[in-house]
């Protein structure tokens, strides 16, 4: 808590994050800070828990314990006072029900009784639906009451964290441009009626969005391929397109899960240049999972090493490279 107060420029701060899958401890008591504007790498042998940790940050898994704050606001943790939530669902309905019962008793009118019952039902349904869809106002209400529920992936994106996937997960039957436009979803505001009646607001927003998508494609080096289906792009371009899509939501922090996996040396160095460019030109903070040591040592400010879910080293690339524990994890202990 004091750490966040002293260093307000932490984009992301994880405290004692643990994740268990049954008996397997995938991530064990990891604390981790990402200062603004840095490139931080997470490395470790296969099965070290890197991707699990990533998925916890992205809101896909709830942690078993610990918490993650984004810009000082806790987004991911175990739920607090979750048992209170069902009361919230029925409370408005109960209030409406009691009020209408009193009115009915006073007025003795069947129509009012019917309206009251309908209103009660509507209140109940509204609250239940909100609980499922969890719109922003519902989350604010929860926070005000003091109930904490972990953010969902879309809330994490809303808070300014974009991500890519280890195994490319593009919308393969949509064009490159459409992929980026989907990435921009949270930044577009057109609602159902705007779309149905094609309001001026919707049209100008669409035009602006397409220009922005084109810009993003150019930024990652995919000029002029906006109309191609994502699955028809070469492998390296698909990786770049995933980055462009993640940039669509204007993130402050970009999570890249093995961005150079399966790439040839040329593509790898291009990707490194791109990551550097994202930091210098867009002021992005980057968290990187990577196996390619040349990439890690080349562009990271800080490196954290995980093994069997535990953090075994943390420091600058040079410190980590010389750390005997790291060498042991990767190459095995020397015979004694």
């Amino acid at each position, binding site marked *: 808590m004091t750490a966040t107060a002293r260093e307000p420029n932490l984009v992301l701060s994880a405290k004692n994050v643990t994740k268990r899958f049954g008996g397997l401890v995938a991530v064990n008591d990891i604390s981790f800070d990402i200062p603004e504007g840095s490139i931080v790498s997470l490395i470790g042998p296969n099965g070290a828990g890197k991707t699990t940790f990533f998925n916890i940050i*992205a809101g*896909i898994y709830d942690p078993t314990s610990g918490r993650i704050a984004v810009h000082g606001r806790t987004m991911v943790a175990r739920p607090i006072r979750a048992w209170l939530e069902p009361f919230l669902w029925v409370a408005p309905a109960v209030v409406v029900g009691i009020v209408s019962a009193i009115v009915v008793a006073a007025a003795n009118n069947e129509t009012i009784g019917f309206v009251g019952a309908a209103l009660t039902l509507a209140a109940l*349904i509204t609250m*239940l*639906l909100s609980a*499922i*869809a*969890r*719109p922003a106002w519902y989350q604010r209400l929860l926070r005000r009451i003091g109930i904490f529920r972990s953010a*969902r*992936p*879309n809330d994490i*994106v*809303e808070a300014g964290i*974009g*991500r890519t*996937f280890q195994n490319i*997960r*593009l*919308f*393969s*039957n*949509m064009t490159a441009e*459409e992929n980026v*436009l*989907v*990435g921009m*979803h*949270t930044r*577009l505001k*057109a609602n*159902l009626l*705007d*779309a*149905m*009646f*094609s309001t001026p607001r*919707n049209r100008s927003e*669409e035009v602006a*969005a397409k220009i922005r998508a084109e810009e993003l494609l150019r930024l990652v080096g995919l000029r002029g391929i906006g109309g191609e*289906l994502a*699955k*028809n792009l070469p492998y390296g371009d698909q990786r770049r397109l995933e980055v462009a*899509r*993640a940039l*669509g*939501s204007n993130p402050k922090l970009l999570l890249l899960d093995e961005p150079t996996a399966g790439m040839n040396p040329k593509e790898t160095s291009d990707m490194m240049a791109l990551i550097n460019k994202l930091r210098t030109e867009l002021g992005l903070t980057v968290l990187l999972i990577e196996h390619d040591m040349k990439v890690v040592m080349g562009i990271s400010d800080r490196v954290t090493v995980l093994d069997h879910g535990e953090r075994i080293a943390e420091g600058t690339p040079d410190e980590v490279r010389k750390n005997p524990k790291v060498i042991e994890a990767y190459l095995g202990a020397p015979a004694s």
Partner: protein
Amino acid sequence: MSGRLANIGGPGFTSFRSRVRDIAETHRSLTIIVAMAIVGLLLPILATVPPFSIFQPQDVWLNGFSNAGVFVLLALGLNIVVGLAGLLDLGYAAFFAIGAYAYAYGASPFSGIHAPFIAMLLIGALVAATFGVLLGAPTLRLRGDYLAIVTLGFGEIVPIVFLNAEKYTEGTNGIGGIYPPDIPFVEFGILNPWPFYGLVIVLVAIVMVFIYRLQESRIGRAWMAIREDELAAASNGLNTVTTKLLAFALGASTAGFAGVFNAAKLTLVSPDQFLSTVSFSILAMVVLGGMGNIWGVALGAFVIYTIQIVLLKQLNAFFGELHVPILQDINFVQYQFLLYGLALVLMMLFRPEGLFPSQRRKRELHAADAGEAEASAVAALDESIT
């Protein structure tokens, strides 16, 4: 020289065509309205021309077209859920029933209310959308097959509820004497099919424009993204729950729309109009027409319905008159599902993208061929360079 002469007519014609295409590209909603107007004018004329006029008189054709229009509406609505958002809904007729019963309560001697037709169109759509959300909310976490089973159950339950709640629905007899539409200056009667025909053309045009615009919007992209990869969609900031609920609600409201029109046209609603066979027919129309393409789906629904009510009946009459052994005893109308099944199987084998596919789906399913062609072209190019 002669070649140049031969081309004189060519460029002018192509530039006209490309200009038409440009206009169609930039004014898509207008194109839909114009196209529907042309279709609306052509169909009655077509019904008086020989091959068609032999089967049945124009009035009967028009009546059939109006009924086909209902199925076009239904197929367009189901296309949102199945074709765009990729949620398999096997109980779609339930929303059709809900819309129809909503109109029956709003405008019949049974309830003693007579609400205006236009208002009831909106109310029917809203009521159906509400039920769509209510069904969707608890079930949308299910995927694929599981969702299909739940919707199948819902599709069975709704007609049974209408059947058994006799006090409120008159059970098997259904609610009769429903008022026909009361649109000013137009007289809707059972004997005159023209008003209903015109109305259904207008309704289909409106629904098509709305769906087309949605499909091209932020919301349509979100549906497609969810169909492609739900996790990736969520990780890119889409609220998958609300997006899927919206697809369900809009699909249901289109069915509600169709239900209101159908109830007003038949002046009777009864549970047996909404059996699961209706759901399957609509799904078959969407798949056969070409999932995801509004024109394809509309045309698919129209063609299939027309074949079903006209061609199969005519086959009965045809073989009956000729006294062909065996064939004259077959009631082809009863075999329509066999024919559907056969058509679907053949379709999946030879043209999986549907009769009138969207460009997108065509590319999806034939991308492999295109990839090969491209590879061979690249190889040829390499060879020519070296």
